[in-house]
């Protein structure tokens, strides 16, 4: 599974993207975020407030219960501020 981070999420986690193999218990966006929090203090800080995190699966906005698969590209980022 390819993970991509943007803005202050990227800075807190310390990398822009990575490929991970989560355990079988990670089946949706919510469980992915919970699992990622345990990967280190940068992750824990970045993901401390899941309600402040926006998620795209294969470049489409998704919410917590959305299912994810090993072949997906999952992006985590703060609320957008363009324009």
């Amino acid at each position, binding site marked *: 599974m390819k993970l*991509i981070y943007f*803005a202050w999420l990227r800075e807190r986690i310390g990398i822009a993207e990575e490929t991970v193999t989560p355990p079988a218990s990670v089946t949706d966006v919510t469980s992915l975020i919970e699992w990622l929090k345990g990967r280190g203090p940068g992750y824990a800080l970045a993901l401390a407030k899941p309600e402040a995190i926006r998620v795209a699966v294969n*470049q*489409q906005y998704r919410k917590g219960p959305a299912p994810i698969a090993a072949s997906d590209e999952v*992006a985590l980022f*703060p609320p*957008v*501020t*363009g*324009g």
Partner: protein
Amino acid sequence: MAIVRVQAADFDTGAELDALTRGRRDVGGVASFTGLVRDFGGSGDAAMTLEHYPGMTERELEAIAAEAVQRWGLQGVLIIHRYGRLQPGDRIVLTAAAAAHRQAAFDACMFLMDWLKTRAPFWKLEETGDERHWVEAKASDDDAAAKWAK
């Protein structure tokens, strides 16, 4: 005609707007909005960096443009959004909508900006001297976008 571009380079507002209507005889009006970097520091050394999600950005802008065409029966739509490092006074974004009647053009152009502000995956980093901070999303932008819910 729908034109969507995401680019680091500046754009030529007049040339872009002209291209939207060139050779046509059925367009009554074109509403446009140009967003600029406002000075947020004051000390003269302010800069902004726009980060985005290549691929998803284009998809979202194309979806927003298509939605506007469909809802207002537009004859043309344009979204150009820059990324990278910008200075106060620089252009960030240009949206435009061409329609037979002016209210459709205005409404569509406001919709483009409201949706873009809340859906297009861009993030602004403001720097002034040694200070840097990521711009926070505004509730007022969510409210503006919510107006257009069907």
